[in-house]
C-alpha cells in the first residue's frame, strides 16, 4: 500500500517547529525517546521499544560447513524483516530500498566491527562451524528503525546461549540444554548505532527522529560506536551535503548517547539474569501490560509552561482593547436586499465590489459599523469609475450591466 503523502501544511509546521527548536513530543534536540528492553522466554529473544517503535530480535544457531576462504571461522547472518505489521507501506517479501539499506547498515555495524568472536564458533576446522543467525522483525514503525534494530540485535546476541558441543576424534556430539548448560557467545564489544536527522540543508539536526520527522528530513547520518569510543561504522544517506565539523560534532554526541544506552543494556541483561536465577516467570507474556485501567496510561509529555501565564495575560489584554462585540447594523445595498455580519458580498449589485469585498472580509466584527459608512461614501465618489479588468466573476456581471 502506498504511503499517505504528507500534506504541505504539516510539513511546514514540522519544519517551523524544528527551527524554533521544538519537537512534536516535547523532547530536546539531543534527547532519545524512552528505551525499554524486555526478553522472551528463550535465550536470544529480545524486544526493544524506542518510544513507539518496536522491534524484536531472535538469535538462533545451527551447524554448517564453513566458507571456503575462512575455514576456521563461524558465520554470522543478519536479516531485518520489514513486516506490514509495522507500517502499511511495507510490503511483505519485497526487497525495498529501505530494507536493503537497513540490512546492509546492520551487517556493517555488527559484522565488520567484529563484535563477536567468530573463531570461537568453530567446531571442526574446515568442516563444521556454528552459523549464528540474527533475525530482527519490525513490529511497529515510529521512526528510527535502525537504532532500535541495532540495540535489539546486540542485546539478543549478548543474551543468546548456544548448545555445548563435545568432539571425540571425528565424532561431534551436540548436547541439548537439558544435558549441559548452553554457553554464551563471546562478545568483544557492543556497537550501538545513533541516528542524526538533518533539516534545512544541514542547518538543524535532531537525534532519534520520530516517523513524522523522518518524513520531512533532508538526510540521515548514522554513527555506530561502542562504549570504548571506537567508531564502528559511519553512513550518511539522503541527498545532503555535510561539513567535516558536523560529522565531528555528531560523533561526539554519539559517544555520549552510546555510553548511556550501553549502561541500560547491561542493566537489562543483569535484571533478566537475576530473574531467571530466582526462577520467576519471564518472557513476552509477562512483560505485556496487564488488564488494568492504568495499563494504557500514556507517558507524561513535558510541556513548556514557563511563559504561559505571561503570554496568556498578554492575549487577554489585547482582547480587552477591542470594544465589546455588538450586533452590527444591517447593510442595505439596494432596496430589498439586507445583509448583516462578516464577509458581506455585494453579489454584483454594486459598481465598486472588489475593494469593498476585500475590506469587508478582512474586517472584524467591531469594525463593521465604520466600514459600512465608508463604503457608502466611496460608492458616491466612484459612480463613474472605470471598469477594471480582473478575474472576478462579479466584475463580469458589472460589465454586462453597463452594456
Amino acid at each position, binding site marked *: 500500500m502506498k504511503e499517505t503523502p504528507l500534506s504541505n501544511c504539516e510539513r511546514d509546521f514540522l519544519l517551523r517547529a524544528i527551527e524554533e527548536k521544538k519537537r512534536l513530543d516535547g523532547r530536546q534536540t539531543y534527547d532519545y525517546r524512552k528505551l525499554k528492553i524486555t526478553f522472551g522466554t528463550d535465550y536470544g529473544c529480545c524486544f526493544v521499544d524506542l518510544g513507539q517503535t518496536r522491534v524484536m530480535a531472535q538469535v538462533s544457531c545451527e551447524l554448517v560447513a564453513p566458507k571456503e576462504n575462512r575455514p576456521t571461522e563461524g558465520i554470522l547472518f543478519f536479516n531485518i524483516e520489514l513486516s506490514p505489521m509495522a507500517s502499511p507501506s511495507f510490503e511483505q517479501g519485497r526487497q525495498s530500498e529501505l530494507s536493503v539499506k537497513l540490512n546492509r547498515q546492520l551487517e556493517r555495524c555488527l559484522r565488520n*566491527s567484529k563484535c563477536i568472536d567468530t573463531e570461537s564458533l568453530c567446531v571442526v576446522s574446515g568442516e563444521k562451524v556454528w552459523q549464528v543467525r540474527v533475525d530482527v522483525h519490525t513490529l511497529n514503525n515510529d521512526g528510527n528503525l535502525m537504532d532500535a534494530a541495532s540495540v535489539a540485535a546486540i542485546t539478543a546476541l549478548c543474551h543468546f546461549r548456544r548448545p555445548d558441543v563435545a568432539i571425540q576424534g571425528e565424532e561431534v556430539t551436540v548436547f541439548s540444554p537439558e544435558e549441559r548448560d548452553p554457553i554464551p557467545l563471546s562478545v568483544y564489544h557492543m556497537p550501538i548505532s545513533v541516528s542524526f536527522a538533518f533539516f534545512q540543508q544541514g542547518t538543524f539536526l535532531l537525534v532519534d527522529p520520530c516517523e513524522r520527522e523522518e518524513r520531512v528530513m533532508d538526510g540521515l547520518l548514522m554513527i555506530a560506536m*561502542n562504549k570504548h569510543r571506537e567508531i564502528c561504522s559511519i553512513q550518511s*544517506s539522503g541527498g545532503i551535503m555535510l561539513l567535516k565539523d558536523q560529522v565531528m560534532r555528531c560523533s561526539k554526541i554519539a559517544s555520549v548517547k552510546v555510553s548511556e544506552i550501553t549502561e541500560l543494556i547491561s542493566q537489562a541483561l543483569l535484571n533478566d539474569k537475576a530473574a531467571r536465577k530466582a526462577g520467576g516467570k519471564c518472557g513476552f507474556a509477562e512483560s505485556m501490560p496487564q488488564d488494568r485501567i492504568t495499563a494504557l496510561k500514556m507517558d507524561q509529555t513535558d510541556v513548556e509552561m514557563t511563559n504561559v501565564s505571561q503570554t496568556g495575560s498578554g492575549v487577554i489584554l489585547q482582547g480587552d482593547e477591542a470594544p465589546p462585540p455588538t450586533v452590527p447594523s444591517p447593510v442595505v445595498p439596494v432596496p430589498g436586499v439586507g445583509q448583516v455580519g462578516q464577509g458581506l458580498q455585494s453579489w454584483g449589485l454594486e459598481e465598486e465590489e472588489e475593494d469593498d469585498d476585500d475590506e469587508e472580509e478582512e474586517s472584524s466584527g467591531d469594525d463593521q459599523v465604520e466600514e459600512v459608512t465608508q463604503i457608502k461614501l466611496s460608492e458616491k465618489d466612484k459612480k463613474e469609475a472605470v471598469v477594471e479588468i480582473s478575474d472576478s466573476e462579479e466584475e463580469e456581471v458589472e460589465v454586462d450591466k453597463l452594456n
Partner: protein
Amino acid sequence: MAGIELLSDQGYRLDGRKATELRKVQARLGVFAQADGSAYLEQGNTKVLAVVYGPHEMRGSRSRTLHDRAVINCQYSMATFSTAERKRRPHGDRKSTEMSLHLKQTFEAAVMTQLFPRSQIDIYVKILQSDGGNYSVCVNAATLAVIDAGIPMRDYVCACTVGFVDETPLADLCYAEESGGVSSLALALLPRGGQIALVQMDARLHQDHLEALIEAATTACKGVSKVLDEVVRQHLQEASVLTGE
C-alpha cells in the same frame, strides 16, 4: 591476513607508494558514441566504465516522476570477471543495490536536478576489474560521464577511500589493504566548497583518529579533482581541435 606489512618502516606500502600517494589515474571521455555521456577510468588496477543516459522522459513507473526535479537512477554492477573468483551474481544482490543507492545519493546532491523537472537521468557503472576502492572509482568515473553528457553539476564529485594503519592514514586503498581488516573510510566530496556528499566507514576506529582520517580523505579527494579537471580540459581541447575551432 596476519603477517603482511601494510606499511613498512620506511613508509612504503605494498605497491611501493607512500602513505598519501594516490594511484595512477588514467581516464578517457566519450568512449561510446551511442550514449549521451560515457567515461572510462582506471585508478591503479581498478577499471571502471560509466555511461550516462539523459535527461530523458521518465521510463518505467511514471508515478515516480518528480514535478520539480529530475530523478537520478543508478545501477552498479560488477563484471563476472572483475574479481579474483568469478562473480556469480553481478547485480541484484544486496551489496550492489546498496552501492547503487549510494551512487544515487551522491549524484542527487551534486547534479542540478532542478533544471530538468519530470525527467530521468540514468547512470550505469560497471566494474571491469576490481582492485580496491570500488565505490570511489565509480564516483570518479560517473562524474566524468555526467560531464561528458553535458548535464550541469554544482562541482566535480571526487571520491577516495582512505584507511588507517599504524596511526597513519593511507590514501587510496588497494584490495590487499582493504581486505586486511583495516578501518576504511570512503568519502565523496565536492572540492570547492569542501562539502561531503557521502561518508561511509567500516571497521573499528577510535574517535580521536576520525578527524585526521577525514582530513586525509579530503586532501586525497582534492588531488583526484585536479586530475579529473586535467582530463576534462584535455578532452575539450582535443574535441575543439577536431572541430576546427
